[in-house]
């Protein structure tokens, strides 16, 4: 699963929003949300909140965090760490890189928390 997937060009995902990559396109079991932060970084997490059925891509993206649209648990986009209840489990991260002007997602490959694609 180390094969990268082209998610689009950086400006196709508006800053402050996210795009969901479905399992049929990624080959990964769960949908993956690729986030584009206001500061221009890209991150990817499993899209489904670890608490209940909600799409994190539809959440509130601010700084390096996303707040779930259902019950407001927040997750760190770099590390997947859950920052507040009601969720209790971290979100799984995936590596994203901007390569040759394309946003490339590596489904199933954990992100390196020290670096962000920008």
């Amino acid at each position: 699963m180390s094969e990268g997937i082209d998610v689009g060009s950086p400006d196709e995902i508006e800053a402050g929003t996210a795009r969901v990559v479905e399992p049929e396109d990624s080959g990964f079991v769960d949908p993956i949300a690729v986030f584009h932060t206001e500061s221009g970084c890209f991150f990817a997490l499993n899209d489904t909140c670890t608490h209940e059925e909600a799409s994190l891509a539809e959440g509130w993206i601010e700084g390096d965090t996303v707040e779930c649209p259902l019950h407001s648990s927040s997750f760190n986009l770099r590390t997947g760490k859950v920052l507040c209840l009601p969720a209790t489990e971290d979100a799984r991260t995936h590596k994203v890189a901007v390569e040759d002007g394309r946003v490339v997602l590596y489904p199933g490959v954990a992100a390196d928390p020290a670096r962000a694609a920008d």
Partner: protein
Amino acid sequence: MGGGVAAFSAASELRARGYDGALTLLSPEGAPYDRPPLSKGYLLGTEDAAKIALAAEGWYAEHEVEVVAERAVALRPAEAAVELGDGTLLRADRVLLATGARPRPLAIPGGEAAYTLRDRADADALRGILVPEARVVVVGAGLIGTEVASAAVSFGAQVTLVDPVDPPLVPAVGEALARRLHAMHAEHGVRSIASVPLGISASGDGSHVVRLADGSALEADAIVAGIGIVPASRLAAEAGIEVDDGVLVDASGATTNPAVFAAGDVSRLRKPDGILARRAEHWEAAVRSGQAAAASMLGQAPPETGAPWFWSDRYGVHVEAVGTLDGRAGGSTVLREVDGVPQAAFLLADDGHLLGAAAVDLPLLIRAARRIMDRGLTPDRAALADPAVPARRLLP
């Protein structure tokens, strides 16, 4: 003291703030679990007991929090201790009262026949009675009554909802959304009656008759009451701590006894001007007050808390509100509508500040509204009303 979200949040905040002394969680039902799912996923059977736990099993050992599945029977602040049922004294330099609340009993003749919903065991009992074709009368159309009615119809029960206020929830979500939400009962086959029950009598076959003030009578296989809560403040009162429909606290959770703090549904805020606030009775308020109490138990400044927020899920829609939509004290309402159907409501003060917002299935609007309120911004009315303006664009 307590195994709810207030006590759990306080314990976790104490550790996060570096407290490394002994920490005991007196939680009669064992490992803390979350209550909102009890009228939603847990009641519907889509979430089990493990799913609603507030922390993974290993969390308590990892954070050196000892969970003692016992009930306190007395607070002994003078001896720096809490007394358990068997007479054991648990020594404690600081005690947090987070004993929550009990459902308000239905105080009418025969009212003890009504089920209530607060604990996991209550939800388990309800799952036994909300069955296909059962005639269910729900008394109280607040958040819990409404969610129980919604779950009951989804199980195929015949549900009647009784509440004198038509529509309920106006102060929390405003008139327009309250009407829209109330109309959903009829749309989903729940009959609603604007009245109050006067008495319940048993019919021989195990069913009941509920007599209403409007003269009608309802036959019921089961009655569920969701008519509010009574704070579990008895131990505080007995220990001489000031109580008035809740254990009185300041914003830091301090009670009138310096060794005792209170948080969550059991507590009631006394504002700096001496005015007693309404009890919060919502999940996030319990989390935040637990965290604030943890900070002040350590002599640290509690974090700022923003406007109160809650959600409710019923009939497949997700309702959220922040602040107040109660326009009786002033302000004007702005509605966001699509094809004449209200999606969101905003209450603005005369000086343009946002006092509150509520929305159905538009959670990002509420996230925007919270930030507008926390930052003291004055939003553009036209933008609030315009469904084409995305939530993010409401902030500079």
